[in-house]
């Protein structure tokens, strides 16, 4: 009998095709937007998270700025000395630490017999130690890492093409680096970095175009000095470090801060009174990104849920109208033996069918819709710039959301149908029969 009443509900809906269709659209839009938001949103955030994840999860940046619960680097004062680097290297939970010095360049030059090439100005060179590659999870495509104290550099693929795609630099080439203080230093290209498609702390600072040893390129640069006129030493604005393993990131951070804040560190002596030492870990960055993403997700999900609610109101509205319109039919059905439960079911089935169909079609449309959104994002990803400039967003469907959306569809159908169906079932048959 339930089946028969179900079929009756279906038949009735078939007779009210346009009405059913329009109500359905409301639910479809609601469900589809939930699917799209969760799928496209989920794909984008896992893309962003992946981008950052590939980078060394034990990594951290050490600098100065404002500390506290939401630490912020405000770089650019030279405070850390080689002595600090050594001390930090000896801390128990620190695996490696590398200084990071900025050497602004005017030009890169190359001579080949009588020919001479010059790059446009603006390249930035980073001075560090070979440990930097490991900390930043960078790899060499060819060649080797430089040795400290030698006139050697490692360059990115971009810089390798600084004189044009047709005149690429190779391992073994000699180039000349003109610093902004007009001093020109010779350098041998010993390695070329593999293209890295991932964002990291370093990327967030700038793209590593050229990496050089601190000696001789950085130590001789006057911008690197710190201390009094009588006793000037080489200093760095930023250090990069990695913890022994992911479990010890917090320990490493604590140890580093404890050392830096102690009287024993050089940095404490050179640091500006108003600023704090700041250690920002990759984990912290991930947490912050996740926080931002989850706020965005919550926000759009809320919007999607509102459209779902509107779909539900649409069902309730149409069901009330239908019940009122069919009052005399309801009276008739009661007169020929329908129980209140039968009438309740009849209308509840109709709203449930709408909810279910809305859920299913909404899932389908939402799934293809999110495909389009992700496709569109991928086509425009170059324009997003910054950390998102490479890689593609993988469309990852969250299967539980399809289940949730279908169940929600049914629930909405039931919930929205309950009141109208009860109204129908509670009718007094005598009154209903007299309804014009």
């Amino acid at each position, binding site marked *: 009998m339930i089946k028969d009443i179900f079929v009756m509900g279906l038949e009735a809906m078939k*007779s009210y095709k346009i009405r059913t269709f329009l109500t359905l659209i409301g639910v479809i839009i609601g469900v589809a937007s939930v699917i799209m938001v969760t799928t496209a949103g989920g794909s984008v955030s896992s893309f962003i998270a992946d981008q950052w994840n590939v980078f060394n999860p034990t990594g951290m940046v050490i600098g100065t700025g404002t500390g506290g619960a939401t630490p912020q680097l405000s770089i650019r004062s030279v405070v850390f000395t080689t002595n600090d680097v050594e001390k930090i290297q000896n801390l128990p939970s620190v695996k490696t630490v590398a200084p990071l010095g900025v050497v602004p360049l005017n030009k890169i030059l190359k001579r080949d017999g009588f020919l001479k090439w010059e790059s446009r100005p603006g390249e930035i060179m980073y001075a560090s130690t070979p440990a930097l590659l490991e900390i930043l999870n960078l790899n060499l495509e060819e060649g080797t890492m430089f040795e400290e104290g030698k006139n050697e550099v490692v360059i990115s693929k971009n810089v390798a093409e600084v004189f044009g795609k047709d005149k690429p630099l190779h391992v073994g080439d000699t180039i000349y680096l003109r610093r902004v203080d007009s001093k020109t230093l010779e350098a041998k290209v010993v390695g070329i970095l593999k293209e890295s498609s991932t964002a990291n702390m370093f990327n967030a600072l700038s793209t590593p175009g050229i990496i050089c040893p601190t000696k001789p390129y950085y130590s001789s640069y006057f911008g690197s000095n710190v201390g009094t006129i009588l006793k000037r030493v080489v200093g760095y604005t930023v250090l990069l470090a990695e913890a022994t393993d992911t479990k010890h990131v917090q320990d490493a951070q604590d140890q580093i801060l404890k050392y830096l804040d102690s009287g024993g560190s050089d940095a404490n002596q050179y640091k500006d009174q108003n600023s704090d030492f700041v250690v920002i870990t990759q984990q912290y960055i991930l947490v912050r990104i996740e926080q931002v993403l989850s706020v965005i997700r919550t926000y759009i999900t809320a919007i999607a849920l509102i459209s779902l609610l509107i779909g539900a109101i649409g069902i309730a509205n149409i069901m009330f109208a239908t019940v009122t319109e069919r009052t005399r*039919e309801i009276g008739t059905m009661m007169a*020929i*033996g329908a*129980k209140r439960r039968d009438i309740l079911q009849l209308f509840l089935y109709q709203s449930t069918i709408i909810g279910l169909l809305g859920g299913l079609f909404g899932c389908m449309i939402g799934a293809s819709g999110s495909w389009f959104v992700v496709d569109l994002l991928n086509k425009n990803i170059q324009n997003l710039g910054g950390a998102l400039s490479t890689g593609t967003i993988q469309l990852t469907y969250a299967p539980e959301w399809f289940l949730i959306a279908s169940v929600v569809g049914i629930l909405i159908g039931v919930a929205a149908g309950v009141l109208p169906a009860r109204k129908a079932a509670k009718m007094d048959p005598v009154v209903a029969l007299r309804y014009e």
Partner: protein
Amino acid sequence: MSEYVIDIDSLTKIYQTGKTDFKALNTVTLKIRKGDFVAIMGPSGSGKSTLMNIIGCLDRPTSGTVIIDGENISIVSDNELAEIRGRKIGFIFQKFNLIPTMTALKNIALPMVFLGGTTADRDRRAAELLGKVGLTNWATHRPSELSGGQQQRIAIARALSNNPSIILADEPTGNLDTKTGEQIMGLLVALNKEGKTILLVTHAIALKRFANRVINMLDGEVSEKS
């Protein structure tokens, strides 16, 4: 079980409209034997439909006892009332009251749906009844595609589908022309011959002749000249 298929004793029905009470039926006592063809006549507002609704288990008495085919309708639940309605009563309305979204066949089968059984059985019986009212070829038509007389015949077939003992017809010819009305009356007479108890509410004096009992109503009270 008593010898009466409808046994009404001191039935009063009071409608509460706002603050004032309205006595639509006033201590009505009425006994109807199985196989009777009863015409109920009376001016508008005299309580004919109210009486029919109570006999048809659509409404309950305010006081008094109403026993329909052995069931005291004052003491049963809503569900049981619906069940009695479905099994023992066949309603025929002035405005036919077919379900517009259903075909003729499905309309006839509808009362059986509420009692259970298989679709095949129901459709078979509905087809049979369709033949009985002479509309075999109209099985798949919807009410809007049928004439008033045809619709009323479908409604009669529907009233018969659960094989009830009582047929209640409240002005069944009210919306039909005289000729079509006579045809419908012919069907009711045939049913009466088969043993169905028939209660017919009508304003048309000409229809009195089909009944073996005529009951007059006035201001909620019944009287009968025998």
